[in-house]
Structures are given as structure tokens and as C-alpha cells.
């Protein structure tokens, strides 16, 4: 037996390849894998049901008020009813959807880093021309698309739905709800994304990470809702949802017209200090991202 060498030296391929954005294939693979799980589909159904429910409620409320207006009731009362109903439905949507989204994220994103560590997929990823920030961006993109698609986008759709059905006078005032609501949805999305990835970077099994995440979110939300009513006002800052509502409500106060604020008779319960709520949310986001970056750095540094 004899080795025969037919060619010595490797022929380089002509021309350079265009460098494509590496995080997208990473995110796409993660989302495609998540979609194969039945639990992910259940999470999507939960989010869709919440959206559908709020959409129906919104339609019924606005149509009822319009009907009242056509019977000759005072326009101010009709406007007040429409603006109040739309505001409370959108606020409730962000609250409910944030929890439904946390459940969906637990299915989709809990294993994003944890499973890569357990299965050794990182070794395969980093034997490609890939930098650490590409990997982190890919995972952030995969996790971030979930709240973007289930929280931010549906909020905008519900608002458009409401403004399309409302009479012109009320529609003018509803414009003031868009930016505060979008801000709330974006802050909620950033908080959920950063915390799930931080937790995923600490764990080694997606399922365990997901259960801890959902239970943790429910416990913090419950504590933040119940304890302030019993005199422990500081406990409100434990709840990410309450902090998000505080930020959105402050934005409404800052940007809403005088008439809009007069029309709103009920507001969601919020924390007393906006600054402290922002600090709590930023701390949570920074903690999640910090843990993610630290873990990837230690895993890849060799």
C-alpha cells in the first residue's frame, strides 16, 4: 500500500466571498428549533388568545360608545368613554401579554445558551469565522424577536385598530397613547429578553431555566402587586411589570395633551418614584446582559 499525492498545495477559490451578517443564521436556527416544540406552539396560542381577547374587548367598547353617541348622548361623555376604555384595555394588554410573553420566552429562549453549553455546540460555532459579539447578537436577536412579535407589534396593531374605529374627535386624543404604550412595550421587551438570556447563560438545561424564569416572574409580579397594598411600598419595585407601567404612565403624563389627561379617569397602579423604577429595570437588563457576556467570554476564552 502506498500513499499517492495527486496534488500538493491547495488551490484557493477565486475571489473573496461577501461577508454576510452572522447573527441572523444563529437566530434563525434557534427559532426554527424552538418552533418544533409543542410547548412553543402552546405559548404562541396563549399570546394570540390574549391579543384576540383584547382586540375583541376594544372593538366592543369603542362600538358601544359610538352607538351611545348616535343615540344623541353628549359627545364629551362618548369621547371620555372611548379614550378611557382604549387606555385601560391597552394597559391591561401590556400587563397580560408581558406574562404570556414570559411563558413563550421560557419555551423559546431558555435553552439558547444553556443547551449550547450542554451539547458542546459552542465548539462548532466558534470553529467558524465568528466573533463572540456575533454569537451574543444572534442569541439576542432570537430572543428579542419573540417579545417584538408578541408584545410591541400587537400593541401597535391594537392601537391602530382602536384609532381606526374611533370617531375623529376621540381618534385625535388617542394619538397621545401611542408613544407611552410603545415605550412601555419596548422596555418590557428589553427586560424580558435580557433576563431570559442571562438566566440561560447560567444554566445548563433549557427546561430548568424556563421553569425558574416563569416562576420567578410570577412571584415577583405577585409580590409587587400585593405587598404595596399592605403598606410595603418598596415591594412595588420588585415587579418588572409595575416598573414598566410606571415608566409608561410617566411618559403619558409628560407627553399627553391636557384634554387627554382630563379624559383618563383611571390609571394603572404604579410605583411612586419614576427614577427608582427606571434604575430597577436598567439594573435587571444590565444584570442579564452582563451575565450573558461574562459566560460567553469564559466559555470561549479557553
Amino acid at each position, binding site marked *: *500500500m*502506498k*500513499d*499517492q*499525492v*495527486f*496534488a*500538493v*498545495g*491547495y*488551490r*484557493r*477559490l477565486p475571489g473573496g*466571498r*461577501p*461577508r*454576510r451578517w*452572522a447573527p441572523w*443564521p*444563529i437566530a*434563525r*436556527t434557534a427559532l*426554527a*428549533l424552538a418552533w*418544533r*416544540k409543542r410547548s412553543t406552539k402552546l405559548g404562541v396560542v396563549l399570546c394570540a388568545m390574549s391579543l384576540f381577547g383584547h382586540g375583541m374587548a376594544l372593538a366592543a367598547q369603542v362600538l358601544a360608545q359610538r352607538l351611545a353617541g348616535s343615540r344623541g348622548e353628549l359627545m364629551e361623555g362618548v369621547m371620555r368613554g372611548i379614550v378611557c376604555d382604549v387606555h385601560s384595555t391597552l394597559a391591561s394588554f401590556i400587563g397580560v401579554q408581558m406574562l404570556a410573553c414570559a411563558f413563550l420566552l421560557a419555551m423559546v429562549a431558555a435553552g439558547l445558551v444553556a*443547551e449550547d453549553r*450542554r*451539547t*458542546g*455546540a459552542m*465548539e*462548532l*460555532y*466558534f*470553529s*467558524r*469565522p*465568528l*466573533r463572540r459579539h456575533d454569537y451574543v447578537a444572534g442569541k439576542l436577536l432570537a430572543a428579542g424577536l419573540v417579545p417584538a412579535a408578541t408584545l410591541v407589534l400587537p400593541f401597535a396593531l391594537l392601537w391602530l385598530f382602536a384609532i381606526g374605529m374611533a370617531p375623529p374627535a376621540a381618534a385625535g386624543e388617542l394619538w397621545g397613547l401611542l408613544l407611552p404604550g410603545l415605550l412601555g412595550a419596548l422596555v418590557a421587551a428589553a427586560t424580558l429578553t435580557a433576563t431570559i438570556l442571562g438566566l440561560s447563560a447560567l444554566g445548563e438545561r433549557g427546561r430548568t431555566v424556563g421553569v425558574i424564569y416563569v416562576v420567578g416572574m410570577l412571584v415577583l409580579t405577585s409580590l409587587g402587586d400585593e405587598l404595596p397594598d399592605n403598606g410595603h411600598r418598596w415591594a412595588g419595585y420588585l415587579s418588572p411589570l409595575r416598573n414598566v407601567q410606571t415608566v409608561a404612565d410617566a411618559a403619558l403624563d409628560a407627553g399627553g395633551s391636557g384634554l387627554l389627561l382630563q379624559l383618563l379617569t383611571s390609571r394603572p397602579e404604579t410605583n411612586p418614584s419614576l427614577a427608582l423604577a427606571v434604575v430597577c429595570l436598567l439594573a435587571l437588563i444590565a444584570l442579564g446582559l452582563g451575565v450573558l457576556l461574562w459566560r460567553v467570554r469564559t466559555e470561549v*476564552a*479557553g
Partner: protein
Amino acid sequence: MTIELHGVTKMFGTVRALDEIDLALSAGVTGLLGPNGSGKSTLLKLISGQLRPDTGHVRVEGLDPFAEPEVFARLGLCPEQDKFYEEQTGEAFVTALTRLHGYGAREAKQRAHAALARVGMAEHMRKPIRAMSRGMRQRTKIAQAIAHDPPVVLLDEPLTGTDPVGRADLIALVRALGQEGRCVVVSSHVLHEVEAMTHQVVLVRYGRGDKGLMAAEIHPDIGTLPVSH
């Protein structure tokens, strides 16, 4: 030289996994031979930039694989570990990893198909990885290592778990890769597997490498064999 290591030492705590390794490899198949725990996988991880040497330096095509990820465009790694995204099909697995080399979706898919066909997985590429046998997994792993057509291919224990027919096919594939002018490094602790692929052997013992040994020197029963490298 395609792969160069000079004075490379790697410690894990107080354990010296590799000790002052000097190695220079060019085109053709080179076998890394040694018992379990001798440092073969550590050596491959150093060459593939997964680990940073404590002393000395590693160069692949003139680049430091630990500091310059660009080198991975010209390097394919088939790792020893056998756990993947179990729900993914072989086709999706190889395509996704090939896309990370900067190829578009269509080209990555074409390359994945070609690589899977080359390792004899054309018929089974749409099977989920969890349904694949050990040999199929090994072939799929090799496919992802060669799909981007790299001039340097590192194969860590590629024949583990394969049946005799599959083993013969993979040995022929490794030999063909070497004959195409690629620098192929294959680790194994089984002498007859290595000698079926190449007669250029690096024997790794106690973290030290002895390069240029012929299979005949290691296995006296083989007799004198012609070596072309």
C-alpha cells in the same frame, strides 16, 4: 507549512496536557496517534483555536487561530463530542453551520448537499439527528467540516462508533481529502485505523509529540512500508 506549532505547552491546573510541542504539517493526511488522555484532542483544540497555548505559538496558514477567527474560513473541524441539536435534520444542521461562513442560504444549502452526498449521507440527510446512528452522526459531523471546502481539516476520532463498511468508506474519504492537497489531521488511539489512512504519524505520549514516525516504527509486525510524505 500549513500548520505550525512552536514550543507549545498547555496546562490544565497542575496537569501538563502538552509539553513543548514543535510540529509542522503540510498537505496530506497526518495521523495523531496516542492513548486516551495523551493530549490528542488538546492538540486539535489548540490548532482549531478553541484553546490558547500557555507558552509557544500556533499558526494555521500563518494566522493565530485563537486571536484571528478569519482563519476558520480555511479550517474545518470535526469535534469529538457527539451531542447536537437533536431535533434538527442533518441537512439543516450542515446548512446552518455553513451559513456562518458567510454564504447565502441557497449556496449554503447547495454546499451542504454536496458535502452530505460526499460522506454518503445523501439518502439520510432529512432525518432528524436524534434518529441517526452513531456512524451517520460521524458522517454528518465530517460533512459540516468540509462543506465550506477548507484547505485544513481537523478530524477528532472520526471513526468512533462506525460499522466496518462505514469505516472503510470514511477511511477512503479521508485519504481522498488528503490527495486533494488538503492538510488533514486525524486523531485516533487505534493504530490500524490510522495506518489505513496515512503513514505519516505524530505519536503523542505524555503530552509530547514525536513527529515523522512511520507506522512501521510503531507497529513492528507491519514490516517495511513505503511512505510517500
